[in-house]
């Protein structure tokens, strides 16, 4: 093979690879442009107030997405509240406490947890979690914690709290495994330095590991938040799908992703569809920003070591 044709082949090859790599940018740009294009109608009609108003009346053609924003934020933050302590506990256990033999099975189980599809979680939530919430957990909470005024109203099992619980279960594995990666990246010399001063095991973990890893752990938590914000199927199945701002943890609500899932195929009229697409656009932009921040934080701590495809 002559030198020049070898060069041509090389250049062609790298060009093809480059084009495929640029497809990643293309995908992002494509989604952005098409969502903007199709939501123009709604943007023109409602402007920015779209996200601060609380109307959702397809019949009258009046749309305001605030209840969905509230629902998304409320479920995500509640889920974080429940998942983060547990995820950190699991990460600490696996990296510092777990006997060598148990390490593999337990991390395997958390990987499995992460791989279960959303719709299966939803199925389980509908037929197991909802009845438990309705018949056991709900009345228990109302009886002992009713003074917080968080547990009023009717309890049909579906609603804010149920959705938050299933969300917490779903985001837990990703927070836990990234936290683990970050904790493992802390050098042994730091752990030994703390231990040599006469520290207990927990003090060593706290000062020698967690303190050094805290930026990355924040990143892991934000990644979990990003996942929670966009979670669709399981939440849709248990949140009650009611476009009003919930007054208690038992009330049904609605999230940005759920309203799209439920109403998109029935959307009659261009404005209706456009409003839903605008919601999709908002979801896209928010998750991009949240994920970018999270990845940047994690990258800062692990110094750009290739992240596992979570």
């Amino acid at each position: 093979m002559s030198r020049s044709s070898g060069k041509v082949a090389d250049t062609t090859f790298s060009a093809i690879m480059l084009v495929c790599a640029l497809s990643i940018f293309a995908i992002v740009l494509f989604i952005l442009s098409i969502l903007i294009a199709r939501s123009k109608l709604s943007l023109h009609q409602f402007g920015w107030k779209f996200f601060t108003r609380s109307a959702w009346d397809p019949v009258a053609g009046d749309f305001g997405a605030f209840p969905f924003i509230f629902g998304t934020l409320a479920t995500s933050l509640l889920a974080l509240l429940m998942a983060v302590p547990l995820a950190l506990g699991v990460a600490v256990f696996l990296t510092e406490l777990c006997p060598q033999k148990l390490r593999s099975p337990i991390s395997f189980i958390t990987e499995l947890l992460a791989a279960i599809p959303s719709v299966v979680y939803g199925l389980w939530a509908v037929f197991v979690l909802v009845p438990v919430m309705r018949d056991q957990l709900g009345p228990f909470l109302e009886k002992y914690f009713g003074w917080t005024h968080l547990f009023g109203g009717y309890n049909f099992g579906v609603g804010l709290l149920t959705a938050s619980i299933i969300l917490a279960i779903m985001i837990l594995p990703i927070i836990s495994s990234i936290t683990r990666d970050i904790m493992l990246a802390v050098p042994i010399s730091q752990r030994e330095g703390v231990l040599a001063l006469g520290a207990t095991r927990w003090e060593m973990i706290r000062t020698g590991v967690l303190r050094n890893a805290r930026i990355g752990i924040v990143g892991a938590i934000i990644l979990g938040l990003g996942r929670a914000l966009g979670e669709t199927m399981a939440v849709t199945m248990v949140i009650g799908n009611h476009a009003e701002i919930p007054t208690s943890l038992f009330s049904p609500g609605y999230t940005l992703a759920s309203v799209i899932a439920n109403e998109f195929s029935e959307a009659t009229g261009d404005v209706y569809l456009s409003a839903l697409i605008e919601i999709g656009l908002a979801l896209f932009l928010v998750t991009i920003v949240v994920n970018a921040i999270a990845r940047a934080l994690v990258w800062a701590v692990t110094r750009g070591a290739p992240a596992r495809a979570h």
Partner: protein
Amino acid sequence: MSTNPLHTPPPLQDSAIARTPRDRSPRRTRLNHIRRHLWNRIVMGLAVLSTIIVIAPLVAILFYLIYKGASSLNLAFFTHIPAPVGEPGGGMANAILGSGIILGLASLMGIPVGIAAGVYLAEFGRGKLLGSAIRFTADVLNGVPSIVMGISIYSLIVMQQKHFSAFAGGVALAIMMVPTITRTTEEMLATVPHAIREAAYGLGVPKWRTVLSVTLKTASPGIITGCMLAFARVAGETAPLLFTAFGNQFWSFNMNEPIAALPLQIYIYAISPYDEWHRLAWAGSLVLIVMIMAAVTLVRIYANRGVLKGAS
């Protein structure tokens, strides 16, 4: 320095080597120790407790699934399409086939592009700003909700064609596979020792040949594993198919028609009011979960073997 090794130099001026005053009574120090060790035990206990709490849902879900799904699984599930509402029996054969078709389409489109992008990042893009930007974007893209992909493809394809189709579903899943496969491919290629590439270059093999015949080949088990993971991940996705493939109660072999898919069918049946359909949903979930568990397990086995062989 003095030549006599044991000569002690005169004391430094400000020699302030004195000790921390022991102004704490022995009893207070003991209390402090007890407090610290107690705290230690408590936190370690909490860590164990949280692990148990985390394992519990999975065990509960799995057991319940197996319990509910196994009794509903029969041969008919795999060979029949759904029976009319109210009638017992039927299966999800069309959904399984439909999933197969959509996933096949998605893989055909997504895997080559993903691998090529990963090749670029690992072989041509190392250390370049463009490479880092693409890598970062791929990670961020992995976090975008799948329903956004669904409505984007709806707007692109379904609205133009004025009908749902298996093809649209395939495209939606393909664009989800690309970033995942890109990153795993890159990671796998990065583990190939540089010495192997250099050996090929030293023999006069051009770069493109080296990448294809040497580097990719060496990393191929890992790359295949990455593809399996991406496949398993999109196999369970429902949201992107809601408005693209849309679902179908009957057999369909046409790319241009709406088609059933397993997760989609499970969703539709789960929220329906019919017990018979609920039963089918459980059975379908079991099938889905078994498939995904198989993929995750295979990945683990490969990863362990790779570690044992040792990255040289």
